[in-house]
């Protein structure tokens, strides 16, 4: 790139400014908006509302996706840019303004049925122990904080590999966010005093991770690393599941609590054909994220994605796999971390998503 060397500084400044900005995938929304309703060739978008909505990709478009695939040409850009900003603090970019917990989008249409995608952190097993995985779920925009936190706590994940660490019946009654950005405070009220105590059979580590499920989920929804104050009857509660919580809880370092590879797309149970868009986050050796497509345990396709970085935190990665040569059927995408040790530290971490190529 040396055609305009005299302005190399400008080129570099512009690239530095935006090159590490990872936009949320927009293909779902674009497909939905360009789909021809009468042909309905994309049933996974027009039909399965839940599945379609559950990705970060459709945050801005979900209100439309549910029942009306027509273009949103009449949309006022001012109305849709503010509250819909990304709920994913672990995939990196610059600040945009997110007046997050507000249900109002400044538009004229009522927002009561507006749905946004919220990151929900759930537990899953890795060779290095239990870690948290993120999946995106649709929640009502005007109740996004409480709804997302309760999805994490109740644990009814789309991906069957995930689960909650909270005891059955656990519930959070109110969640609020006050202040600005990471200097704000997220408040969570327990629905029952029984959640103070650590249930029999739950380890201290599990309890800590359970609390982090809520911390990461809510920080993701508000879009800021604000600490979380747990409360009971309006007052700070001294402990949650036996974890001291008199003071607001901050997020634990990512390498200690988050799975090192996490697939965002395809979503569990998605249908796909032609090109499979694969995206996620990872912290993997030399930023390499090995990918496999398996059918009945047999590897039918291999590839890899390159994350935007590695070491110390998760970095976004995305790629497309050409699956046009694969016959219709049920497949599993397997993303893993690279393991140069040859399994010494327990082996690579993986995240899997089942998808179907329709016949």
């Amino acid at each position, binding site marked *: 790139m040396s055609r305009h060397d005299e302005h190399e500084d400008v080129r570099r400044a512009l690239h530095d400014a935006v090159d590490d900005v990872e936009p949320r995938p927009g293909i779902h929304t674009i497909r939905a908006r360009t789909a021809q309703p009468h042909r309905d060739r994309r049933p996974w978008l027009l039909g399965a509302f839940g599945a379609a909505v559950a990705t970060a990709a459709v945050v801005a478009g979900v209100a439309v996706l549910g029942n009306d695939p027509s273009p949103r040409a009449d949309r006022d850009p001012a109305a849709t840019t503010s509250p819909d900003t990304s709920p994913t603090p672990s*995939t*990196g970019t*610059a600040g945009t303004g*997110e007046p*997050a917990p507000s249900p109002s989008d400044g538009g004229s249409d009522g927002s009561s049925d507006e749905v946004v995608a919220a990151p929900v952190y759930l537990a899953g097993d890795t060779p290095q122990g239990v870690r948290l995985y993120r999946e995106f779920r649709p929640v009502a925009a005007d109740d996004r904080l409480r709804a997302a936190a309760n999805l994490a706590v109740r644990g009814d994940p789309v991906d069957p590999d995930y689960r909650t660490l909270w005891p059955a019946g656990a519930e959070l009654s109110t969640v609020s966010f006050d202040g600005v950005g990471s200097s704000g405070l997220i408040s969570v009220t327990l629905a029952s005093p029984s959640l103070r105590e650590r249930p029999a059979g739950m380890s201290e580590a599990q309890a800590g991770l359970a609390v982090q499920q809520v911390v990461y989920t809510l920080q993701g929804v508000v879009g800021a690393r604000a600490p979380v104050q747990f409360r009971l009857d309006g007052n700070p509660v001294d402990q949650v599941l036996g974890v001291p919580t008199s003071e607001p809880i901050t997020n634990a370092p990512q390498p200690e609590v988050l799975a090192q590879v996490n697939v965002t797309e395809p979503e569990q149970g998605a249908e796909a054909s032609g090109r499979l868009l694969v995206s996620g986050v990872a912290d993997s050796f030399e930023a390499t994220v090995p990918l496999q497509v398996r059918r009945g345990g047999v590897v039918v396709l291999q590839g890899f994605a390159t994350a935007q970085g590695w070491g110390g935190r998760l970095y976004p990665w995305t790629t497309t796999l050409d699956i046009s040569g694969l016959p219709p059927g049920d497949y599993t995408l397997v993303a893993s971390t690279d393991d140069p040790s040859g399994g010494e530290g327990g082996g690579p971490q993986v995240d899997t998503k089942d998808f179907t190529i329709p016949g």
Partner: protein
Amino acid sequence: MTVRPLVDADTCVEQLYAAHWRSLVRLSLLLVHDVGTAEEVVQDAFVAMHGRWSRLREPDRALAYLRQAVVNRSRSALRHRAVVERHARREGGLAVAHGAGADDASLAAARRDAVLDAMRALPTRQREVLALRYYLDLSEVEIAEALGISTGAVKSHASRGAAALRDRLGTDREDLR
């Protein structure tokens, strides 16, 4: 006689999305300074491109159209910005962590904001020419076509824009790195 397009609109959207989604969002980001808006702008551009496919017919022309649409739509989005910002302030003005922001209030982020702020302060044409020239590396002819101006105008916007950007950043070349 009519020549049938080699690919249909849906396929072209998928291919151009796979190859250019990120760079187009980043292009728009340089023009609007807000990732959420940039994503909207580029989605809109793809939808518009799909709607015009019968006239575009070729991926190359579709890409040129996309770039043009992104620049034009970024410009209109910017006009709406004042409204959005007022709204955001009313709602508490939560700074977003679209990503690393929340985790890393880093030097890199500060520098990025400085560049985006500087871009925003430039006259519209200078900003657009700089982004197309030095981010997308388009030729002067391509830029002239995309913006509907002469190549002479592209040249002068580019050199004035570059000087103004350096000025705004209050730096010499070393500091820009």
